[in-house]
């Protein structure tokens, strides 16, 4: 490990360009929401403001990881997974009090999964949670010996691990992908591409929905989601993805297809987590009590779009 190899990374023009782009977008949007909030005190900007705040955090971590060492990204994503797993385990009503000690195993799986991602052991990475933990958690539950409603815990705990750890760890694994000839942005570029696209997709679905939204798409789960917002968001994201394709090894056609799928996957993640929260009775808590469903809101779309993007790119370019 050679820390402070910043020269190598700073020489990377694509990444530097996008960092400046992100910083300028962040500064503009923070100012915009601040002025908007001052002009129209009644406008409901909590959601957008929270998003900008988490963008700032992400940008800071990304910049630190770029100029110091990529291991910072692995630790940051690991902490993110841990906090998300803790949150979903805390608010879920499908986990019994007796499952406390089994939840420890879910937490233990997090550093292991990120260590595997850091080492780049792809086959182990793919099976660790979907196969090994899927066997191990029911086994530990059975050993505890409390059988009433054990089936529910057996299905809920591995699913929560998939949603918060397995899926998010794909973002970190992007940084462990091998170098490709003729493609300079590398894993950092791919990571930037998918995170930026997913977040901008959320924002544009929101904006198009506010501007044109008429026809509700799935009113029982998310009353604010409309067909107009969905289609407008997906199209905008696809166009942005096309112009940001220099961050990836994709060609024009692939960039359009991948961006389109990432946008759709982001929408799916959004409504799946919304449904989970609605089931718990936590929908639209916002930030009144910070931390109750707040973090899940931030990672909902990423947890689906991340793996979708990863496997698309992996199968297109990294299977030699």
């Amino acid at each position: 490990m050679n820390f402070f190899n910043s020269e190598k990374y700073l020489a990377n023009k694509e990444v530097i360009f996008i960092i400046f782009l992100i910083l300028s977008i962040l500064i503009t949007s923070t100012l915009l929401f601040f002025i908007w909030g001052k002009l129209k005190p009644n406008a409901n900007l909590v959601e957008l403001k929270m998003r900008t705040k988490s963008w700032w955090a992400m940008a800071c971590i990304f910049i630190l990881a770029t100029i110091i060492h990529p291991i910072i990204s692995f630790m940051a994503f690991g902490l993110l997974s841990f906090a998300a797993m803790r949150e979903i385990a805390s608010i879920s009503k499908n986990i019994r009090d007796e499952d406390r000690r089994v939840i420890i195993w879910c937490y233990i799986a997090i550093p292991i999964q990120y260590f595997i991602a850091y080492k780049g052991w792809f086959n182990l990475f793919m099976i660790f949670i979907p196969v090994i933990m899927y066997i191990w958690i029911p086994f530990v539950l059975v050993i505890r010996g409390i059988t009433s409603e054990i089936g529910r815990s057996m299905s809920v705990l591995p699913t929560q691990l998939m949603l918060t750890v397995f899926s998010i760890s794909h973002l970190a694994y992007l940084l462990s992908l091998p170098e490709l000839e003729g493609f300079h942005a590398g894993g950092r570029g791919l990571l930037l591409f998918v995170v930026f696209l997913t977040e901008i997709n959320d924002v544009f679905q929101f904006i198009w929905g506010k501007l044109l939204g008429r026809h509700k798409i799935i009113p029982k789960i998310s009353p604010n989601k409309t067909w107009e917002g969905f289609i407008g968001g997906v199209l905008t994201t696809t166009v942005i993805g096309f112009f940001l394709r220099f961050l990836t090894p994709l060609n024009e056609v692939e960039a359009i297809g991948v961006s389109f799928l990432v946008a759709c996957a982001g929408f799916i993640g959004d409504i799946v987590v919304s449904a989970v929260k609605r089931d718990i009775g936590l929908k639209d808590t916002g930030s009144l009590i910070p931390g109750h469903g707040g973090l899940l809101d931030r990672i909902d779309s990423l947890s689906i779009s991340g793996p979708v993007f990863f496997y698309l790119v992996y199968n297109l370019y990294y299977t030699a």
Partner: protein
Amino acid sequence: MKRLYLTILYVYLMRLFLKLIVGIRYHNKEALKKNKQFIVVSNHNSHLDSLALLSALSSSQIANTHPVAAGDYFGQSPMRAYFTRIFTNAILIPRSAIKGGQNPIRMMSSAISKGSSLILFPEGSRGEPEKMQEFKKGVGLLLKMHPEIPFIPVFMKGMGRVLPKGERMFVPFDTYVCFGEPRHCKTNNVDDIVSEIEQSIIELAENSFVKLQN
């Protein structure tokens, strides 16, 4: 010296641990800063409770704020009593009257007369997770003797899952600590004071629950 190590231990290390690993969230923590001297009154589900409240204090308050702990539990051996006093700054009181022993109310009262603040768990013991037991009278007697001291009601949720009574394994869960506004007792009757405090904590619990639901 005491202030220094308690500050390092709680204001920095313990707070970082609680926030990063346990996932604790403080709500309206500013309530602690409004008065120089106060009595924090909270529900009690876990050994973590007093650590969580100590970590909410600022470095100027920490050396002068004492959790009140059960002498018959934490003072079982002189060693344990010593470490409890050193590391949590606690006052150990006997929970039941012992012949020739010190009067617990007088011990707390003299600490207040010296200018200290107290952290009290009027339930007396940790009890079952997310359930509140009936309050003991001691807090009422104490506030009757010192009507000039405000009390700060605190409602904590989730601690009983992180480290419940009788468990040694600690498991991180999101927890939150909700501080109410500091207030003075309205009456001079011990029973009324106790029920007023109890009511203020139940109110906090209900308010936060309503916020959770909407």
